[in-house]
């Protein structure tokens, strides 16, 4: 949909540079941009530089700030809890991304039809996306609670279990229900990304393959999937980067438990900076996470660039 609009803009953009005659004066444009640059300088670039600067200091909230050299980073390398948090975040990212793709791709195929009803179902599947993670997390806390939760009641009602399950009391069930919640909340988003890919495939192509005798599975594997490559990669990038930054659901639903096993990377930064008030150490953690994230997105973006133009 918007992909095509985007393409049609491009030629104009190229031509635009050529005829600058009759253009308003350039400095006026700079004046229009200036307020936004102030925001980005003051509340983005300066804090970004400060993150690096602070990571070389012992920086308590109150009291004396001391230069620490690489001490924070040395401590970080030895910090078992931080590595556990990074490892857990990576595990969560892999599992939740796989789960979201496994749900969103069939959903996209299901609702990619020129029917009014399909549009209606698209809207319903997308609805949880606009609810915040805070509200969604507390909502699922209630759904999951063993005393008055809907799930316990339903499972008991159909006679599947006798006593209410307590998924938050051990690691894998806790991770499982968090993933279920995140799939519920975000599958609709990935579905829309995948739909833009599906809708850019010309109907003639699948029709021609059908006439040539290709079955539904062959058409999906040989035509649909390869031509969706870009939107699948994009969905992967967006899911991986947002999952690496997961915080709300672990802070609210599992509260890091059981026994600190579900503390994510951002959660451990939160604990260092705003619970122990070791701002320098928190900054070192933040910088480490930032490097990991920028590395991941540049790897993924390189994959996206390497493509046939209409792939």
């Amino acid at each position, binding site marked *: 949909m918007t992909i095509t609009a985007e393409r049609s803009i491009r030629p104009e953009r190229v031509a635009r540079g050529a005829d600058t005659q009759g253009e308003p004066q350039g400095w006026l444009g700079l004046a*229009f941009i200036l307020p936004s640059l102030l925001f980005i300088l003051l509340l983005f670039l300066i804090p970004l530089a400060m993150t690096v600067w602070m990571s070389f200091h012992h920086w308590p909230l109150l009291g004396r700030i001391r230069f620490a050299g690489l001490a924070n980073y040395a401590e970080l390398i030895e910090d078992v809890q931080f590595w556990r948090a990074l490892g857990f975040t990576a595990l969560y990212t892999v599992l939740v991304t796989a789960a979201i793709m496994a749900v969103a791709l069939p959903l996209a195929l299901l609702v990619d039809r020129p029917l009014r009803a399909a549009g209606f179902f698209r809207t319903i599947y997308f609805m949880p996306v606009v609810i915040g993670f*805070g509200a969604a997390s*507390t909502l699922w806390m209630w759904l999951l609670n063993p005393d008055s939760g809907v799930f316990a009641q339903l499972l008991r009602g159909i006679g599947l279990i006798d006593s209410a399950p307590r998924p938050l009391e051990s690691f894998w069930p806790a991770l499982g229900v968090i993933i279920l919640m995140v799939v519920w909340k975000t599958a609709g988003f990935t579905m829309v990304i995948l739909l833009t890919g599906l809708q850019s495939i010309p109907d003639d192509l699948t029709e021609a393959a059908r006439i040539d005798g290709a079955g539904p599975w062959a058409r999906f594997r040989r035509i649909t999937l390869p031509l969706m490559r870009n939107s699948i990669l994009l969905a992967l990038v967006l899911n991986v980067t947002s999952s690496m930054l997961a915080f709300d659901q672990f802070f609210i639903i599992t509260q890091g438990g059981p026994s600190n096993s579900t503390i994510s990377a951002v959660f451990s930064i939160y604990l260092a900076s705003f619970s122990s008030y070791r701002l320098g150490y928190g900054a070192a953690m933040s910088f480490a996470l930032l490097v990991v994230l920028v590395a991941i997105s540049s790897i993924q973006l390189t994959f996206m660039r390497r493509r046939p133009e209409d792939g």
Partner: protein
Amino acid sequence: MTLANASKPILRRDEAGGETVRYALFVLVAGLVALFFLMPIVWSIANSFKPAAEALADPVSLVSSAFSLENYRRLEGVGAGWTSYAANSVVVALGTVALTVLVAVPAGYGFSKFRFPGQTLLFVLVMATMMIPFQSILTPLFLILKWLRLQNSLFGLVLIYVTFQLPFSIFMMRNAFDAVPRALIEAARIDGASQWTILRRIMLPIALPGVATVAMFAFLNSWNEFLAALIFLSDQNKFTLPIMLVNVSSGIYGIIDWGALQAGITVTMVPCIVLFLSLQRYYVRGLTAGAVK
């Protein structure tokens, strides 16, 4: 091409009955899946209007024999009361929308319709901020807000939200202004229209859907944001709705008032859903445009 078109009617006639069956099957499957996405929302809203005893005994049923607002009344007794938390959320969200539009629309215009040295570099710089998550610069932001005496202030929170809304918003607005045909501008200029008139009478009407998209994303993101609000607001009168929800969900002496929580979840999510359903077009536009960047 012609073959495909010729074969279609034949297929249709043969499978006329099959089409109906397939449609029914689609509605059935899609409907079942819809239950998974819809029911948690419906259950939460339904239970917020049930008396506590009934919600505890039967959370699954959707219609209550006794419609009750007692949960909302009890939620008013939590901390400063839900109405003042809702007011804080409204102030933060509308403040973010207003300031984001005020800053991003001129910036998009400047990047789209002017040429000056260093422009490309500045645009790349603005877009690069999207690569870096705000979670990784929270610690220094905390100090900067403290120095500016904007810590524990709703205005300080708005400034943070606006900053992180800007890259996407500027990108949207530049594309919106790019779509204004230059012939139209030339014609207006020849007719003697001033720069200001061109912006107001020609550019803005065409760019208006872009503004709607920017405003909607600013609203939803600031309304729903949790981590920054958790860190930067310490005074309980200043909390926003998501922070209130977490306070209710952590309970008092280990006892969670599920009814009050349902009421809180309902007042937090219903505005987002209503906004989405009424302005869906603009939302999906922004989603795909931002995604294709």
